[in-house]
């Protein structure tokens, strides 16, 4: 990747992830989630250090992390994970595809726990789809010690 192109994509990633964290905060907080953003540091392939916004979410004993992963992702402009903390178990993944965030999640049956997800389904990210998925994660989360 050319340096100019890399810098542009990196800046776009930082901007889009910040906007995503703002949207998630706006949608989740009215549903009882407490949120706190913090910077996540990255070292790029050209050794450039940069920061993107990560977001912690907590409701009751369930703790989640909206975790920026990368912008250099085949088939997507960015990837962000939603992980159960503190174990960092995968819960859902968000991809920026053609300028739109989609959330990939496998709704578990009642007997399945989050973290053992199989085939995921992609949903357009909206306040409703996010909160449906957050509720499902919360309902099936195995609480950590």
């Amino acid at each position, binding site marked *: 990747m050319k340096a100019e192109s890399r810098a542009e994509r990196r800046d776009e990633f930082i901007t889009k992830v910040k906007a995503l964290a703002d949207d998630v905060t706006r949608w989740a907080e009215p549903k009882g989630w407490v949120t706190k953003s913090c910077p*996540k540091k990255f070292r790029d392939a050209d050794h450039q250090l940069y920061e993107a916004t990560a977001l912690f979410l907590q409701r009751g004993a369930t703790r989640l992390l909206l975790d920026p992963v990368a912008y250099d992702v085949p088939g997507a402009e960015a990837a962000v994970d939603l992980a159960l*903390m*503190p174990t*960092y178990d995968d819960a859902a993944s968000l991809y920026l595809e053609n300028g739109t965030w989609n959330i990939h999640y496998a709704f578990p049956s009642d007997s399945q726990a989050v*973290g053992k997800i199989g085939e995921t389904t992609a949903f357009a990210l909206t306040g409703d789809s996010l909160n449906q998925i957050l509720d499902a994660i919360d309902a099936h989360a195995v609480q950590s010690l």
Partner: protein
Amino acid sequence: MPYSRFEWMGHVKAVEREHGAARFAIARLRDEVKADPSVLRGDDENRKALAIAHENLEGTYLVRLFAAFEAALRSFDRARYNDPTWDRVAAILIDATASHRRIGEQVRDSTHAVRRQRNWVAHEKEWDDAARVALAQARSNLCRFLSHLPDEWE
């Protein structure tokens, strides 16, 4: 600049993500070569090593996963004693940190289970299948232990 627990945990998770991508890539190439051996025609060494590379991949990444965890713990321990050269073996590092941070036995023991498996792989000993910890479980155990460290240390 202070060290951040969150960044260390992210580093451990990044190793697991990398393993997922490598496992997918090797499995796909293995299947492709099985269906069409000409893919690696003239490259006999890689053809021969492909199956064993796939078989050993998880062990290889387990060593890296534990190394990332151990680096976090060592960083915290050195800050605790204010000595950048302070060093002790992983087993004692885990016990001492668990005692200092009042980490429960179950969390400590599950961390030792990963350490033992790292030793089996690193020292090429026979694996104890009954005590084997899958990579995702290992990451979970190690991150849970790290979550008991303070947010930051100098």
